[in-house]
């Protein structure tokens, strides 16, 4: 059984019962996610395009959520993108690994049709803006692996902010 609160010892009426559970799984990433993670391990972002609507999804999940068909073509995306929206996390929570306050943002890579969540660093938390142009900062080559930990964070790349119209449909 797992470690966790035990049924408390008491001389009075029993009011609680500990019923810990532990289930072990083998998670299968599936075809699309496996391709994406292998790309990450090589320091690149790989998306997939829907043959029906032409949209590029990253990370790809194997199907287009609007058409319900398998995404087919692999598309390599660059390292730059636009912050579509963001929030500044101030509240501590269990399992937190990043020092608060920190910026959590939705990042639309150039060429993608869906944003994904990422950490923004190298900017004071009161200066983050929608439309800010950012670039990925990867770990050192010898530390690349099959997980998003290969991407340390995104940081401003100095380009002028993207106009609202260029990303408004991705909000």
């Amino acid at each position, binding site marked *: 059984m797992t470690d966790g609160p035990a049924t408390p010892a008491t001389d009075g009426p029993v009011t609680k019962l500990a019923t810990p559970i532990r289930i072990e799984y083998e998670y299968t990433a599936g075809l699309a996610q496996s391709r994406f993670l292998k790309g990450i391990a090589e320091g690149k972002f790989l998306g997939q395009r829907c043959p029906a609507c032409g949209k590029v999804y990253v990370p790809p999940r194997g199907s287009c959520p609007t*058409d*319900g068909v398998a995404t087919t073509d692999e598309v390599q995306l660059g390292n730059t993108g636009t912050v579509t929206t963001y929030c500044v996390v101030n509240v501590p929570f269990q399992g937190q690994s990043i020092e608060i306050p920190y910026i959590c943002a939705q990042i639309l890579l150039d060429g993608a049709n869906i944003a994904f969540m990422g950490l923004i660093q190298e900017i004071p938390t009161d200066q983050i803006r929608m439309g800010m142009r950012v670039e990925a900062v990867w770990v050192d080559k010898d530390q690349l692996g099959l997980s998003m930990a290969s991407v340390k964070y995104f940081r401003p790349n100095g380009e002028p902010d993207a106009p609202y119209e260029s990303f408004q449909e991705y909000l």
Partner: protein
Amino acid sequence: MSPAPTRTVRPVAVVSFAQSKSVRREDHRNEVEMLMPVVTEVFSSIGVTKNDMGFVCSGSTDYLVGAPFSFVSALDAVGVWPPMRESHVEMDGAWALYEAWTLLQEGEIDTALVYCFGRSSPSDLQRILALQLDPYYMAPMWPDPVALAALQAQALIDAGKATERDFAAVAARSRRDALGNPNAQVAKDQGPDELLGDDYVVAPLRRHALPPVTDGAAAIVLAAGARAEALRERPAWITGIDHRIETHALGARDLTTSSSTRAAAEGAGLFGTSGGASVAVDVAELHTPFASQEIIVRDALRLADSVAVNPSGGALAANALMVAGLVRIGEAAARIMDGSASRAVAHATSGPCLQQNLVCALAAEPPAAGGGA
């Protein structure tokens, strides 16, 4: 017990059915990738798309995936855009079909997609199913479903209602019939005598009396009235459908009978107006994962001896959790759609020892207008 229904039943039919080939481990594709071809096939075989569906309802369980809201990502297999009416049950797809049938009764929509999926291979199914039991009095002992089914099988033997040879006969027949089902997982020709040489897994159940562990997915399209006739030359009309549940206190139940199956069958109008007569359908697809349970459900449904039971091989040949019940409805419907049967009954179960049961009566003719089946 409730009387046969007398309300007006809007004629709703199964017009398409598709399933994945049942396998022990689907370990290359994830749930969405496994489901997509099934949804594609259930649509393409009748020339419709998701845009023709008035409602989407699915059955699956997060406990198999080990992640919350796993059914939400499965919608990617359908493509719910523009936004669609959608629902989900943490149950076998047979119950998702019940919900879709219920919504179709209201008359606002004419079609529904029902789908379900389950991969048991990522984890230990025997352990996961203990989590559906009473958390105070049963789950802490982690009884596996084989042990619970064995308690029921022993009770059946003690009551003089069956023998181990009867269990072997059910298993032998099912797996031999499965040889004719390209989607079945376990199919072989072995007689009862040979099977009785199997070791016990949990006595009195030997290996052959147990279902396989399966990864799979299935889908059905339902359509109402004229829409059903337009989509399929010979729709499988649902003449009645009902489901009932017994208490979860295992020791308070009579494990040798299935009162909930009997009540659901009455609610589905299976016994007609003559009450207790033997039911003469052409085919019965019963979701009885353990061979001993087929004997109980046959009796609850009062099936005539002449009825072909589980020509697909049933759950003993392929038992994807969350899927095998809908597959029973699909297989029964397929016999009507291909013209080899005129009347059929499909059964689905959930919970330990047949705790909850659904009965679906199907026919080549729609239910009479203005009255129940």
